[in-house]
C-alpha cells in the first residue's frame, strides 16, 4: 500500500524522471504506430482487394512476420545498426529513431494482417454496386478507405497499444539509457531490478491507465458502427 501511495505521489507531483520517461515513450510509440499505419493500411487494402500472382506468398510471409518474437526483431535491428552492421553509418543504435524503426518492423505486419481480411470481406460486398455505376480508380479506393475508417482507427489503437507495451526490441535497440532511450516498459524492468518499486509502480499505473483509455475509445468506436 505504501508503494502504491508513493507511486501515486510521483504521478501527481509530475516527477521529472517520470515525465521524461513518458515523453520518450510517447514520442516512440506515436511515431512508430503512425508510420506503421501509413505503410500498413495501403498494403493491407491492396492485399485485400487485388488479385495478383504471388499474393498468397506475401500473405503467408506477412502472417509469419506477425508472429515474429520482439527479441528476434531487436536482434536483427541490433546487428544492422551495430558497429559491424551494414547500417552502422546511420548511427541508430541506442537512439529513439532506432527504436522507432524496430517497432515499425514489428507492428506494420500486424496492421497489414488486420486490414487484409477486413478489406477481403468488404470489397466483394461493395464491388458490384461500385462497378455497376462505373466508379473506379482513385474514387473506389477512397470509398474503400471511407468504409474502413472505424477499422483503421481500431487498428491504430491496437498498434499504439502494442508500441507502448513492447519491451524486447526497444531494450535491445535502445539500451534503456536514462534520459535518452528509457521508455515505460524498459524503465519498469530497470527500476524493479534496482529495487525502486515506487517508480516502477508509478509507470505501471500509467501504462494500465493508458490501456484503459485505449479500450474505452475502441469500445465507443465499436458501439457507433
Amino acid at each position, binding site marked *: 500500500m505504501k508503494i502504491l501511495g508513493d507511486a501515486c505521489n510521483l504521478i501527481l507531483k509530475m516527477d521529472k524522471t517520470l515525465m521524461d520517461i513518458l515523453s520518450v515513450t510517447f514520442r516512440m510509440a506515436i511515431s512508430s504506430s503512425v508510420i506503421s499505419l501509413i505503410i500498413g493500411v495501403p498494403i493491407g487494402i491492396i492485399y485485400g482487394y487485388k488479385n495478383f500472382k504471388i499474393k498468397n506468398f506475401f500473405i503467408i510471409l506477412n502472417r509469419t512476420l506477425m508472429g515474429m518474437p520482439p527479441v528476434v526483431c531487436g536482434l536483427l535491428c541490433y546487428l544492422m545498426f551495430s558497429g559491424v552492421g551494414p547500417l552502422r553509418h546511420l548511427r541508430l543504435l541506442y537512439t529513439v529513431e532506432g527504436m522507432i524503426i524496430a517497432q515499425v518492423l514489428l507492428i506494420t505486419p500486424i496492421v497489414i494482417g488486420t486490414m487484409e481480411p477486413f478489406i477481403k470481406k468488404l470489397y466483394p*460486398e*461493395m*464491388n*458490384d*454496386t*461500385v*462497378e*455497376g*455505376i*462505373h*466508379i473506379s480508380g482513385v*474514387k473506389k479506393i477512397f*470509398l474503400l478507405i*471511407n*468504409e474502413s*475508417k472505424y477499422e483503421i482507427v481500431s487498428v491504430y489503437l491496437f498498434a499504439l497499444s502494442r508500441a507502448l507495451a513492447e519491451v524486447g526490441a526497444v531494450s535491445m535497440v535502445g539500451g534503456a539509457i536514462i534520459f535518452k532511450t528509457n521508455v515505460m516498459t524498459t524503465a519498469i524492468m530497470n527500476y524493479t531490478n534496482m529495487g525502486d518499486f515506487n517508480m516502477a509502480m508509478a509507470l505501471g499505473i500509467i501504462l494500465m491507465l493508458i490501456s484503459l483509455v485505449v479500450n474505452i475509445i475502441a469500445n465507443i468506436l465499436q458501439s457507433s458502427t
Partner: protein
Amino acid sequence: MINIRNIKKTYNNQVVLDIENFSLEEGKIYAIIGPNGSGKSTLAKIIAGLLIDDSGIKKKIIDNSGKILDVSYLPQKPYIFDLSLEKNLLLNGNDKEKCDEMIKKFDIGYLRGKNAKKFSGGEQQKMGLARLMMKDYDLVILDEPTSAMDEISKTRAIDIIKEYAKNKTLIMITHDLSKVNDIADYTIRLECGKIIC
C-alpha cells in the same frame, strides 16, 4: 437490336448458365423470371461485365451499329456507403439538382442529412435506385429492385422505373410476377441456366 451471344458459366464443374444467343430490342423493358438458382443474377452480372463467363473475356454489349453500350447494374442489395443520403447519390455524378429531383421522386426527403447505413431495407433500395438513376445508360440491369419495399413504394418505384426506362433498354430481374405485366414489354424465363421462353 442488341445481340448477346454464347454465354456459358460453370461453377465447380456444374454448368449454371448455358445460353447460345438472344436479342434485345432497344428501348424495351425485359423482365427475367425464373426459380431460385436458375442463373438470373449470374446472367445479369455477365451482361453487366461484373462476372466473366467461361470464355474468359469480359462481355461487351454491342448494338447493330457496332456501338459498345454503356451498361449499368443495380444489385438486389445495393451497397450503402457510410455517408449521408445526398453524398450516396452524388457518388454517381455531381448534379445537385438531379440529386434533389431523385430524392423528391422517391419521396425520401425525410432521410436528408441522415447516415444511409441506418436506413431500412426498403429505404436503402430506394436510395440505390435513385443513385443509379442519377445518370443515363444505354442498357440498365436491375436485380430485384423493389424486393424490400412495401406495396405502395413498390408501385411508385415501378412507375419511376418505367419513366426512367424511356429511350433505354432495361432488364429487370424479378420474382414478383404480379408486377411483370405492369412494367415489362417482354418476359424471359430462365430455368436451369437456359432460356425457356
